[in-house]
């Protein structure tokens, strides 16, 4: 579904080393790594936000719909939650439904600045689900949330992935338990410049997904 | 007379509160234009540059302009036909209690000059002073500014003398805040030029004037009629008064007599030569002086 190969990414200093990866439909990947290693940078590249590095999509030529939960909420502060969701194509009904699912029922008319950070992050998650993405990119979806809320959302995402088996997910997390619960594979970013290391499969629905998984990982020398 | 719409139109730009407006308004009001077989169309403008712009952009056929400007346009390649309007150059006024009584007294004083260094009155004054061995520009403190500001500065004693347009001078005098040191037309005599030279005129683009010679003739005739009426018949002024913005009767009288005094005699060869001489005196190179064909002469 998505193929990506590049020699490296650097700002002032080199951040990512040479990486080559492939994501298939239905892949459930958790991306782990220490703070500052380059996880967000990699997600941005996958989302097509890097002007130099472009991933190529394979399979049906239709452009990939991407749902990206950024590390900060990135809601439009001058639009209410309903409006923010409407901007990605969710009508009022669907928006209300999604907000209810992330525990924000009744907050649709509020502006992002009137929310707590955790609430704003959940609203951003709702937006990211609203696009019915082919590829779901989640940058620490459960940060700033209490454990109950976090597991609730975990359940929500798992259900969603189960419902649409062709949806792929890459989820950044620092919590191995999240990784276990959500993903069928784990990717580790390590070192400086960072290399990608693939790790064992998770549990549950993951096993099945794993068999189809075609992640290729070439830690090539530059 | 023919119906108005079939009459040839003559478009003139006119300063709303300019002195030319007085006689033009009279022409229109009394229907002198229709009598002469043309329709006078006035385009009021707010100030001199606007009037010049109107002429240059061919929005109007003619405008009031002073001789030096016409000369400079001629030098720039835009010849203009010059129909005499007035011989009033302007005046040098001083405070009523001023000790200045001669040109020589102006040395070292604060002098305000309307219209800038190119203003003809100022140039002439400098000429005459130079004749008396006085370099005014160097020995006095010169302030160029808009005429209303100069009037006000004189009233407040911030200037000792002001070289300004005659109607500003007339108003100052009528209200008692200035007296005339000398009318600048006296300077012409000192420079041994003809008296009452028309330094202001109605000007038309030369090529247009040649094509519409007859129209210009009719206009000149209407002008003559109006000037005669205004000179000989004080009642004629009643309708013009609204345009004069005279605060009181004294001002009104001063403006009225000032205007009449400025009516120039018709041009003849000698007077045209004198005008050309004036141009030379104000610094025009001899070979670039306007030819006499550009000065309008009335048919006898």
């Amino acid at each position: 579904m998505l193929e990506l190969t590049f020699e490296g990414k650097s700002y002032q200093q080199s951040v990512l080393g040479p990486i080559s990866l492939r994501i298939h439909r239905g892949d459930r990947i958790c991306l782990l790594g220490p703070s500052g290693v380059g996880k967000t940078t990699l997600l941005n590249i996958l989302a097509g936000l890097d002007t130099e590095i472009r991933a190529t999509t394979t399979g049906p030529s239709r452009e990939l719909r991407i749902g990206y939960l950024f590390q900060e909420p990135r809601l439009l502060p001058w639009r209410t939650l309903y409006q923010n969701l409407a901007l990605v194509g969710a009508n009022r009904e669907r928006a209300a439904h999604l907000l209810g699912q992330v525990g924000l029922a009744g907050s649709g008319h509020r502006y992002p600045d009137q929310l707590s950070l955790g609430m704003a992050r959940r609203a951003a998650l709702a937006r990211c689900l609203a696009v019915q993405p082919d590829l779901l990119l989640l940058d620490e979806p459960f940060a700033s949330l209490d454990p109950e809320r976090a597991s609730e959302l975990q359940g929500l995402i798992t259900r969603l992935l189960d419902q649409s088996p062709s949806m792929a997910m890459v989820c950044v997390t620092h919590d191995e338990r999240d990784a276990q619960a959500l993903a069928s594979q784990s990717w580790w970013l390590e070192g400086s410049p960072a290399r990608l290391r693939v790790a064992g499969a998770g549990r549950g629905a993951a096993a099945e997904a794993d068999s189809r998984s075609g992640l290729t990982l070439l830690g090539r020398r530059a | 007379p023919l119906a108005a719409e079939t009459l040839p139109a003559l478009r003139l730009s006119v300063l709303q509160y300019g002195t030319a407006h007085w006689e033009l308004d009279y022409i229109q009001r009394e229907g002198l234009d229709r009598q002469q077989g043309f329709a006078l169309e006035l385009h009021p403008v707010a100030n001199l540059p606007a009037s010049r712009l109107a002429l240059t952009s061919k929005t109007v056929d003619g405008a009031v302009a002073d001789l030096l400007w016409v000369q400079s346009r001629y030098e720039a390649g835009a010849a203009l036909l010059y129909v005499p309007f007035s011989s009033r150059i302007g005046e040098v006024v001083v405070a009523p209690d001023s000790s200045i009584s001669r040109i020589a007294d102006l040395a070292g004083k604060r002098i305000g000059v309307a219209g800038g260094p190119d203003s003809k009155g100022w140039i002439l004054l400098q000429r005459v002073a130079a004749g008396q061995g006085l370099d005014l520009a160097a020995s006095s403190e010169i302030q160029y500014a808009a005429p209303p500001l100069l009037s006000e500065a004189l009233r407040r004693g911030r200037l000792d003398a002001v070289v300004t347009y005659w109607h500003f001078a007339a108003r100052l005098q009528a209200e008692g805040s200035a007296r005339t040191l000398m009318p600048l037309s006296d300077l012409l005599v000192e420079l041994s030029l003809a008296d009452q030279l028309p330094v202001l005129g109605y000007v038309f683009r030369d090529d247009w004037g040649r094509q519409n010679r007859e129209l210009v003739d009719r206009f000149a005739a209407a002008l003559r009629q109006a000037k005669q009426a205004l000179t000989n018949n004080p009642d004629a002024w009643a309708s013009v008064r609204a345009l004069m913005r005279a605060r009181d009767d004294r001002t009104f009288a001063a403006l009225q007599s000032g205007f009449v005094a400025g009516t120039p005699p018709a041009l003849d060869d000698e007077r045209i030569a004198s005008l050309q001489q004036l141009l030379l005196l104000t610094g025009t190179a001899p070979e670039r002086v306007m030819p006499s064909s550009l000065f309008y002469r009335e048919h006898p």
Partner: protein
Amino acid sequence: MTTQSRPSGWTNWVALPVLLALWMALAFALDSALLPSPLTVLQTLMEQAASGQLWHHLGVTLYRVAVSFALAMLLGIALGFWMGRSATVNAVLDPVLVLMLNLPALVTIILLYVWMGLVEPAAILAVVINKVPNVAVTIREGARSFDYKLEQMAEVYRFSGRQRLWDLWLPQLFPYVMAATRGGLALIWKIVLVVELLGRSDGVGFQLHMAFQVFDVSAILAYSLAFIAVVQLIELAVLQPLERRAHRWRHPEARHA
């Protein structure tokens, strides 16, 4: 730090009466035709209004201001936006912008009048040419300080052009647009004055300069204040409500005015 979300109603009505009183006192003390008292000016205003002069000239001027304002804002915003977004476009056009910005109004006005004649389109065009660079310079700064994080968000979620414009860019440009609007209205009106002075036979600018020729300060003030009253009306009836609406989303601690 003041944090009240909206000051009480009286505050709007303090300064003008005070100013008026000051003016009155000063006029009384000076007793000069050069500073007529508010009453004299009011009287002049009434006279001009009664004779229909005021409405005619004010109407003509307002029409010119409105047309050229609309055109100048439209073009200026487009140009400023373009230059703010693209470094290359900016580098190419910046010298032209500096040139146009600093070309004296007089020059454009004269050239246009001379070429096109003293016609209405020349007047309007002259104003627009004078104003566009000013708007562009302000808007450019706004377009330069867009939040790149929201930009990326819009990229990922494939915002349409219209969505970017209305939901992403305009809200960020809003304060700059307001600054350009307020400063622009004032500037345009000042240019219109010059334009009318030089080549029109009606409008407030024409009246003002005629009044200047005869030093009729009371008429000068009457016409100026008539226009200012209109702008004040626009400010209270359009700009301020618009501003309040547009600032609704702000955190109350951050909301001012």
